[in-house]
C-alpha cells in the first residue's frame, strides 16, 4: 500500500462551508453592535465611566458612543481634550497612557482623528478617547501636561500626519529627518515616496549626493562606482 494512499482520497467533509459561493467582500455598511463578538472583553466595557464623562463635560463629549467588539470609544471636542484627560486621570484613575495615534479618514470634513488609549489599573479598564481634527485647523492641545508619556506619541502623530500639538515641549519629527518635508501617513502620500525627497549618499566619497537612486527608471545611465576596463574588442562587429 502506498504511503500516500490516504493523501489520494479527499478528506472533504460535508459542511456549511460548501454551500453555493456567496460574494463576501461587498462591504457591509454599518457594523452590527448586537452581534456577539468572541473577543469582547470586560476591560473595554465601561458604561459608568462614560456616564461620568457625560455628566462632567456635557458639551464636550459627543452623544454617540461608538461601540464595536465590546469596545467603547468616546468622541471628545478638540478644545476640551486636556480637561477630559485630566478628569480621567485624576478622578477616574486612568493613570496610564498606552498609546496616542492618528488616523487619516480622508473625508472632506474632519479629515483626521487622534485617539488616546488610556488604561486604569485599579478598575481594570481601558478607554479610547477620540478627537476629530479638521484639515483647516490642525492644532490640537497637547496632553503632555497630564500624561508625560504622550510626548513621543504626539511627535509621531505630527511626523506622520502633520497634526500640530500646541504647548508640546518638543514638537520635532520622530522618524523622518527634519529635512523631510512631507507627512508620510497621509493617504495622498505615495507608498514609494516622492523621488528626490530624501538624498542618498554618493557613490564615491568625493561625489555629489544622489537624489534619484533609480536613474535607470528615468532613462538615465546608472552611475557606477568602478570603471570598466576598456575592452580591445569594442567596436568590432558581432
Amino acid at each position: 500500500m502506498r504511503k500516500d494512499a490516504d493523501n489520494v482520497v479527499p478528506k472533504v467533509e460535508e459542511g456549511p462551508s460548501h454551500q453555493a459561493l456567496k460574494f463576501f467582500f461587498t462591504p457591509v455598511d454599518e457594523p452590527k453592535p448586537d452581534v456577539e463578538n468572541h473577543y469582547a472583553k470586560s476591560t473595554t466595557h465601561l458604561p459608568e465611566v462614560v456616564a461620568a464623562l457625560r455628566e462632567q463635560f456635557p458639551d464636550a463629549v459627543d452623544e454617540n458612543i461608538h461601540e464595536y467588539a465590546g469596545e467603547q470609544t468616546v468622541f471628545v471636542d478638540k478644545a476640551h481634550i486636556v480637561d477630559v484627560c485630566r478628569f480621567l486621570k485624576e478622578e477616574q484613575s486612568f493613570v496610564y497612557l498606552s498609546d496616542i495615534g492618528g488616523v487619516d479618514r480622508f473625508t472632506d470634513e474632519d479629515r483626521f482623528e487622534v485617539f488616546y488609549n488610556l488604561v486604569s489599573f485599579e478598575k481594570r479598564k481601558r478607554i479610547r478617547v477620540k478627537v476629530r481634527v479638521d484639515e483647516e485647523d490642525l492644532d490640537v492641545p497637547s496632553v503632555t501636561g497630564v500624561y508625560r508619556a504622550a510626548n513621543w506619541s504626539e511627535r509621531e502623530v505630527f511626523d506622520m500626519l502633520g497634526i500640530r500639538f500646541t504647548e508640546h515641549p518638543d514638537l520635532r519629527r520622530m522618524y523622518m529627518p527634519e529635512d523631510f518635508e512631507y507627512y508620510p501617513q497621509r493617504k495622498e502620500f505615495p507608498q514609494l515616496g516622492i523621488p528626490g525627497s530624501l538624498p542618498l549618499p554618493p557613490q564615491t566619497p568625493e561625489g555629489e549626493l544622489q537624489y534619484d537612486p533609480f536613474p535607470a527608471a528615468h532613462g538615465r545611465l546608472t552611475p557606477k562606482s568602478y570603471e570598466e576596463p576598456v575592452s580591445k574588442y569594442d567596436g568590432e562587429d558581432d
Partner: protein
Amino acid sequence: MSAKPSFAAADLGQAFRFWPRHNEAIYDRLESKHAWLEERHDDTSDAEDPLENEMILNIGPQHPATHGVLRCVVKMDGETIEKSVLDIGYLHRGIEKLAESKSYQEFMPYTDRMDYLSPYSNNVAWCLVVEKLANIEVPERAQWIRMIMCELARISSHLLWLGVGLMDAGAVSVFLWAFKGREDLYNIFDEVAGARFTVSHSRIGGLASDVSPTALAMIRDFVDSFGDDVDGWEDFLNRNRLWIDRNKDVGTITREEAVELGLTGANLRASGEPYDIRRFEPYLRYEDVDFDIPIREEGDSLARYFVRMEEMKESLRIIRQCLDRLPEGSIRTDDAKLAYPSKDEVYYSMEGMIHDFLYTDVGVAPPKGAYCYSAIESPKGELGWYLESDGTGNPWRARLNAPSFANLQGLEYIMEGSLVADTVILIGSLDPVMGEADK
C-alpha cells in the same frame, strides 16, 4: 548625474553633513532641555580648562551596544550625563503605510520583522486583532498551540536579551550559551513552521499547519532540559559580584515614574506595577493556565534582570501545562470566507479552490468603519494594534503600539543623571528592539 529638486534640503550640495536641519533640531533640543544637574559652570563653552567643559557625545547610530540603530546624543559633565536626547527613526520603514496596501494575510510576514527577537508573538498579535475585528472564532487546538509558541518566543527573546546584555557588559561566554539555547529553539520553530526565525506560522483564523509529534517531542525535551540551563545561569549570575555591582541601583525607576513615563513590560513589573496583559485582558487561553507574574519593587536594572529570568521559568511552566492540555481538533476555522481552507479541500473541491483564490486575492473583509484595539503581552511589553477597516480586504489604518517605543521614551529620562558607562547597561536592561520602535 540627477537633476536637483528645488526644496530647501537640496541647496546644501557640498555642505551636506548628515541631515543638517535634523541635527540642528537635535542640538537645539539638547540645549533647551532642563538640566538634571545644576548648571555648575556658566558659559562653559568658552572655558579653557577641559575639565570645566561639558562634552556632547553621540552614541550611535552605529554602535555595537545600541541594540540596533539607536542614537543617543548626550551632554556630559565629566562622566555624568546631564541631558540626553534620543534620536530614533534610523530603521523606519513605514509599515503602517505598507499595511494599507496589503491584505490582512499578506501583512503577516511584515509583523515578523517588527519585534524580530520573538516573531511568533507579533504574528499572534496581528492575528488576534484581525480576528477581533472580523469576529473570527479560532479552534481550541490552535489557541493552545499559539500559546505554546508565544511562550517559546518569549524564552527566545529573553535569551537574546540575556546574551546580548551580558556581552555588552563584557561577559561574552553568556552570549554563546544563550545562542546555543536559541539554536535549540530555532530547531523547534524550524520543525513547526519551516523557518528558523521569521516564521509566519500563525494564520488568520488559526495556524498554517499542525504541529507534528516530532515537534511536540522536541518541545518537551527542550522544556525538560532548559530549566536546568536557566538554573545554571542563575547560579552563575545571581550572586556574581561583578554583575550585581554593574546593575544594582542603576537606572532606578520608581513605580509612579514608570507609570508616568509609559514604560511597559518587564520594566514596569520590575518597578512594582503588576500590569501584564495576560492577566489584565487575557487573550488566547491564559485564563485557564496557572502562572505567576514576577514582580519586583526596586526598579533598578538588577530587578529587571530578575524579572526576566523568572519570566523565562514561568514560560516553561505555561508550556508544560499547555502540552498536557493540548486538545485534538482542527487548527483553522472551518469557514472558508474567513480563513484559508485546508489543502485537501483546495485540491479536491471546486469551492475550496475558489475560496483559496478569493482569500488570497481579497481575504477577510471586516465591516466598514469598524475599528478595534487588541494587545498581547509580548516579551517586550504591551504590543497592541489599532486596526480600522474600510470594508475591503486591506486595512484602512493599522497602527502599531510598540512597547519598545514607550520604553525608549522612558530611557531618555532615565539616562539623565546616570554615568556614561551605565548607558549600555540601561539600554540592555530596558531591552528595546528598534524594528518595532521605528516601525
